[in-house]
């Protein structure tokens, strides 16, 4: 077991190194740099441009800059986010919890709803409930998140004014409100972005969970459970679900990176100031250290999530883990 942990850790480090290098190279290939918009006008003399670039180390060859950045990283330094006038660590420290909140809520809601939908579909297999829910989840998988986001924004936000369309808190004196009101305000602002993400998660989970449940429902031990006199709901929840949920949990771990990717769009659309929006702004500003840190952290998150979901999947399916 300890050997396995070491192997996984080495894998994770290797993945992060590859990702960091690729992002650095890609960004070097893209035109512009942090000073392009501010300095590269016709009225700025070349000597001034050169001096500002030299001050921030942009006169060095890319290879040397990468080595410097990597060396700083091993000391735990992520560098300075020039576009924010703060250190990268501070920017990320603010943004990361917001994204974790958004993605965490979406993941939790989506997973619970998806499993619930699949249970209902399995209970009413091939009847109208199954078909209606199946059509809805197919739509949820097929329609892109940004479209759902814009529709939700237009109708639930602008037309019916049920939810705020942007930001994560009310303006004005909201900071002075009592704690529970501020929490309520946060949940209210979270509703649309988290809801849209959760919808996508729920659709995918439901489709996979339904397939897994139906495969298990053909097993003899399901027949045994029915013969014992268990009601159909008990048969599904107590015997089929525990045997069918493992692969879906593992799948969730694999789907997490795409969820983080989806969160970039959602954060941009709903103005949720998390890692996605930070990355988006950093890309426009060519804020190299911030871009690298954001991508690297997303990578670490994906690797960690995958390891954790693998562990959970093994825990709920002890047969697989213990045999051989």
């Amino acid at each position, binding site marked *: 077991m300890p050997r396995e942990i070491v192997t996984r850790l080495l894998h994770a480090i290797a993945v992060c190194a590859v990702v960091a290098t690729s992002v650095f190279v890609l960004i070097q290939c893209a035109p512009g740099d942090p000073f392009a918009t501010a300095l590269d006008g016709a009225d700025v003399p070349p000597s001034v441009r050169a001096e500002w670039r030299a001050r921030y180390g942009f006169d060095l060859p890319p290879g040397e800059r990468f080595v410097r950045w990597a060396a700083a990283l091993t000391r735990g330094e992520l560098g300075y986010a020039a576009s924010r006038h703060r250190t990268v660590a501070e920017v990320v420290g603010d943004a990361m919890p917001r994204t974790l909140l958004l993605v965490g809520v979406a993941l939790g809601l989506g997973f619970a709803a998806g499993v619930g939908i699949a249970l209902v579909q399995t209970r009413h297999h091939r009847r109208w409930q199954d078909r209606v829910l199946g059509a809805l989840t197919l739509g949820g998988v097929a329609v892109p998140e940004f479209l759902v986001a814009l529709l939700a924004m237009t109708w639930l936000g602008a037309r019916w004014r049920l939810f705020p369309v942007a930001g994560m808190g009310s303006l004005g004196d909201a900071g002075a409100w009592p704690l529970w009101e501020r929490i309520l305000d946060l949940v209210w602002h979270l509703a649309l972005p988290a809801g849209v993400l959760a919808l996508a998660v729920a659709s995918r989970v439901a489709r996979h969970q339904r397939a897994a449940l139906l495969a298990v429902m053909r097993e003899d031990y399901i027949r045994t459970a029915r*013969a*014992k*006199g268990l009601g159909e709901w008990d048969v599904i929840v107590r015997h089929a679900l525990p*045997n069918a949920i493992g692969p879906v949990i593992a799948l969730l771990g694999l789907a997490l990176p795409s969820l983080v990717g989806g969160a970039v769009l959602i954060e941009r659309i709903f103005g949720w100031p998390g890692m996605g929006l930070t990355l988006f702004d950093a890309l426009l500003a060519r804020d190299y250290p911030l871009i690298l840190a954001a991508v690297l952290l997303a990578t670490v998150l994906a690797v960690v999530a995958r390891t954790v979901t693998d562990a959970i999947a093994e825990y709920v399916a002890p047969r697989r883990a213990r*045999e051989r």
Partner: protein
Amino acid sequence: MSALLEVRDLVVAYEGRDGRVRAVDGASLDVARGETMALVGESGSGKTSLGRAILRLVPAASGSVHFDGADVRGLAGDALRRFRRQAQVVFQDPLASLDPRMRVGDIVREGIDIHALAPRADANRRVARLLEEVGLRAEDAERLPHEFSGGERQRIAIARALAVEPEFLVLDEAVSALDVLVRRQVLDLLATLQAARGLTYLFIAHDLAVVERIATRVAVMQQGRIVECAPTAELFAAPASGAAQALLAAIPRIAW
């Protein structure tokens, strides 16, 4: 003779790729209390479908099943639950028929809990007694099904079926997957349990050699119908139907 089970003109149909397939096509059968009725026939003759339809694990298209005077096809709610307690089943492959995630003790105890046959503390003691009755140890309750051998697993499946104290047991090829020695032990166990508990068996098999030892009467099935039903000795001495003759001829005999 009052029959515990009366099956009349039962039809079980499945939607196949090329239309409806009648797995059971008008089968009639009586099983008396306390006897072992063997149900034999070649693969695909409808034995398993008939067994499952009797237990209402698959729906019947037409015909009737009466168990202890009650119309099984019309049961619902509490009456159906009561029937599930009275009539139990043991399947061919015990590894497939036991939930791989549940401990043996929980598998056996679930039936007791569903039918509220014993308070919580008593239930565990009953599970231990049942495991010992089928030749396992009380400690085995803590283990998972895959940790046992084939014969032991079938003993678990039998203990599970007996946990709700049924009167009637469908043994659906219950010993077909076991090797000859283990098969003999399990057959002996079934005979002992029958004597001790007054059980009635419907013993589904494709192999007449197994049936000869355990059955009171034998029903022969062919293409969804019962073509012959006779006391075991009679059937072995003078098989009337072609299906029975073919099955008898298929028993390997050593020529001296």
